[in-house]
């Protein structure tokens, strides 16, 4: 039987506001443990939260950029559960009146456009961080708590279950990150935990309209892991169903080392969060004027960027999407243009040679040694016929591996294309002299024989000859000899 995978994604993003969401503490990452805390974020008895309006605006901005309705009246709720990193034993969150709802985002996978619904975008507070002297909280000899992170504003973005493949899920996340970075509400660093995601996966027979039981996957720390986790999980579920079993609604833990999901807890073991309206905060009214003001601060978003790439640089739809949907690629592309690269050639390299090299080495484009300036220099030499395309690829590989200036590398390796006519003519004469047979054939009227001679000339110059010029010079020399006969 053929199965269809159904995916919904929840993303948590820490907002990059100066201060925390309900107190004045700083939000800097990496500070000494428990140095950015106060009675409010430590949940001491009797203290009260005061809402940071900047955090509300960042959440509104994200919601608006995701085409959400930003509601007029909203409120906060308490999500109650016990855990040592949650000092009040409840998290102030939003239950039934999120700041944003009913939005959407378009992604493109294999040249096909797809609209993914955004169910809600809401604001809540971050928890503290546990550091275990051991593997986990149950087996550790002792655990320590760092509350610096506690109270940093967090937004949760919940998609509809609209994705049907791991590729779509990845495209969604890449573009979501790109949008959030563009509007500047978060640094979206998965490795520092400022962006985290959970995927809900279920499968159903191809053509079915019913949904299967879903599993919720936690601990996914990279986009690559999301892809792998979804692939693994949909196959696991298919195996369960094909062997006559039943998929249970449960939460599973992604083990990145083993590349598999493992059972964490069943639906029955799930927390009852006992949500109720937060009595310490008054309901929040978001009026039209405020929404409009926030809307005005939203800069160019990926979709607009794509349109600009097509219109201004003549890029194709596919390349434009590929680059504009990814913030890092867009940044690279625009820096490259700024450094003088020709747009189409740059886009070609970025989606071809560069993409392949990044993929093969597992490098992020933002840390590529062949940066936009290097790439612009390389492409400039190709455009001016200083090096051949083939040489460019060799130089690129070197620069990608070791870094440095492509021009200097060309000079050092003596790879510059021979464009000086005299130098190349000498070499052409030598080739003709060394190959009397083919030369005679050409003179006798077999025009195709020139191809062999061009090849020989390229070989003799180690590819540094401009093929067009080589062809021209060889013909001139032979035609001259023909006349002299």
């Amino acid at each position, binding site marked *: 039987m053929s199965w269809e995978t159904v995916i919904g994604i929840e993303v948590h993003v820490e907002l990059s506001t100066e201060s925390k969401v309900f107190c004045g503490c700083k939000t800097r990452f990496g500070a000494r443990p428990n140095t950015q805390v106060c009675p409010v974020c430590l949940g001491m008895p009797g203290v009260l939260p*005061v809402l940071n309006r900047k955090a509300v605006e960042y959440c509104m901005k994200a919601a608006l950029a995701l085409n959400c309705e930003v509601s007029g009246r909203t409120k906060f709720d*308490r999500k109650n559960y016990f855990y040592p990193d949650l*000092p009040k034993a409840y998290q102030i969150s939003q239950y039934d009146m999120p700041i944003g709802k009913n939005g959407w985002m378009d992604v493109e996978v294999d040249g096909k456009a797809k609209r993914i619904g955004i169910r809600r975008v809401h604001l809540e507070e971050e928890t503290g961080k546990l550091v275990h002297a051991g593997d986990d909280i*149950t087996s550790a000899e002792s655990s320590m708590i760092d509350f610096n992170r506690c109270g940093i504003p967090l937004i949760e973005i919940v998609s509809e279950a609209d994705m049907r493949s791991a590729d779509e899920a990845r495209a969604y996340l890449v573009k979501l990150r790109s949008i959030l970075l563009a509007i500047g509400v978060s640094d979206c660093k998965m490795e520092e935990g400022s962006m985290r995601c959970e995927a809900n996966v279920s499968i159903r027979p191809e053509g079915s309209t019913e949904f299967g039981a879903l599993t919720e996957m936690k601990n996914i720390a990279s986009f690559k892991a999301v892809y792998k986790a979804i692939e693994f999980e949909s196959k696991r579920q298919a195996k369960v169903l094909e062997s006559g079993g039943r998929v249970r609604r449960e939460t599973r833990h992604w083990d990145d080392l083993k590349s598999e999901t493992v059972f964490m807890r069943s639906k029955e073991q799930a927390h009852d969060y*006992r949500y*109720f309206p937060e009595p310490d905060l008054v309901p929040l009214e978001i009026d039209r004027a405020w929404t409009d003001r926030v809307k005005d601060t939203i800069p160019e978003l990926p979709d607009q960027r794509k349109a600009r790439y097509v219109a201004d640089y003549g890029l194709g739809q596919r390349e434009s999407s590929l680059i504009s949907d990814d913030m890092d690629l867009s940044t690279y592309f625009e820096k490259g243009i700024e450094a003088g690269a020709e747009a189409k050639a740059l886009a070609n390299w970025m989606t071809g040679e560069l993409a392949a090299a990044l993929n093969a080495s597992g490098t992020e484009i933002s840390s590529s040694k062949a940066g936009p300036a290097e790439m612009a220099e390389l492409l400039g030499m190709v455009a001016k016929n200083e090096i051949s395309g083939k040489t460019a690829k060799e130089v690129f590989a070197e620069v990608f591996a070791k870094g440095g200036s492509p021009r200097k590398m060309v000079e050092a390796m003596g790879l510059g294309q021979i464009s000086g006519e005299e130098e190349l003519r000498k070499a052409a004469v030598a080739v003709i002299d060394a190959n009397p047979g083919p030369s005679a054939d050409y003179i006798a009227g077999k025009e195709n024989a020139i191809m062999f001679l061009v090849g020989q000339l390229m070989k003799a110059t180690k590819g540094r000859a401009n093929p067009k010029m080589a062809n021209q010079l060889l013909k001139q020399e032979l035609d001259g000899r023909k006349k002299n006969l």
Partner: protein
Amino acid sequence: MELYEFGVGQLAEAFEKGIASPSEALSSVLERIAGLEGEVRAFLLTDEEGARKAAAKADGLWLAARKGGTKPSALTGMPFVLKDNICTKGTRTSCGSRMLENFVPPYDATVAVKLAGSVLLGKSNMDEFAMGSSTENSAFGPTKNPWDTRAVPGGSSGGSAACVSAGFAPFALGSDTGGSIRQPASLCGVVGLKPTYGRVSRYGLVAFGSSLDQIGPFARSVEDAAMVFEAIAGHDPKDSTSSPRPVPDVRKACSKGVKGMRIGLPKEYFANGLDPEVRDLVMKAVLRLKDEGAEIVEVSLPSSMYGLAAYYLAATAEASSNLARFDGIRYGLRDLGAKDVVSAMKRTRSQGFGDEVKRRIMLGTYVLSAGYYEAYYNKALKVRRVLKDEFDEAFAKCDAIAGPTTPEVAFRFGERTEHPLSMYMSDIYTITANLIGIPAISVPCGLSKGLPVGLQLAARAFDEETLFAAAAEVERGSGFAGRIGGGAR
């Protein structure tokens, strides 16, 4: 007349004129406390040294004022007491619980900051986490009623009420979630005010029912209470639910009289369960208001009977969440015998909380749990809205609502501890003001069987002016102002 018998206004005048100094007033109350505290047990902590320092500082300020310097605020140098659920920086705040027996807050409640120039004598006893109506739920033993030490002082702010009644302090602060200021004020024969929700900052008040809690004053006269109210009220940026409205001049309102004021009597408040003597004393006071020019109108609050149920759903739900933070991880009691974090939390909470607190946490947890929220918590919210509508309707016909504060005078120790519901009943007249956020005050209006009876007045939200005008008139009629607990001498 001894200085400990002086009220807030009288002491302020004495300080200003140099008739007495804050240190002299302090000595007088400390002597009074030394003589009677062994019997009354109103304090959980006294800070004589801190008080003497504060008084000496205030002496200087009043002295400087008399020499032509700036006049300090009226409450400067005034001895007072805080209920032990109001956080005081560097001074233990226990909430009457083993859970916080050693908890010293690193911050002050906003009201404590506002009263920084006054002289804090100590922290008063209370029902654990403000849950109770007799102080019998204090983990550190009950407080006695200064009028009769066999009787309870009421609760949960029983210690503060007893302090003011016994002459330990001219004023004290308490907190009122369902009557916790007004009921003990009534039982101890003092004035107790629950301000409009949002009038006084809750910052630093250890929360019980966040949407119901308000801090308010106890004093031996209405005008004294007015002075304290003015000192602690006003918007606080640290409390989002505090109101930016300007605080009215309620001291002036005390001499306004009730001519033309319409006083509403809810017929439901004078029905079953009300002690006939209490009823008669309240009615007599109401008739005196009529003699002074007030118009008495009958109003109806038919849904009042659902108030108690709605209260116990809303308050326990919020409490279950508010008290969840006491898990032994960061401060307060911690059970050291546990092997893992879950059992450490469970054991800490089992040992740290008393029965009534546990009962309410369980009740509140149940009320909020999946599948019951609609039936309980949401229904309680609906009742609150209905009650508000009924009060709005009543306030269209009258300016203030009068009735008894409690159905009976102070009961004896142990009388109601076996039956939590009978204890809950003593709040039947007070809880609606909390449910809809309006201000209410209890004023003594006489004695029944030798024990004080309180009359409760309620007014529209933020109309404390009307409340004080009417309360002062009741006080003039009863002649109770300034009286010190009868049994304590």
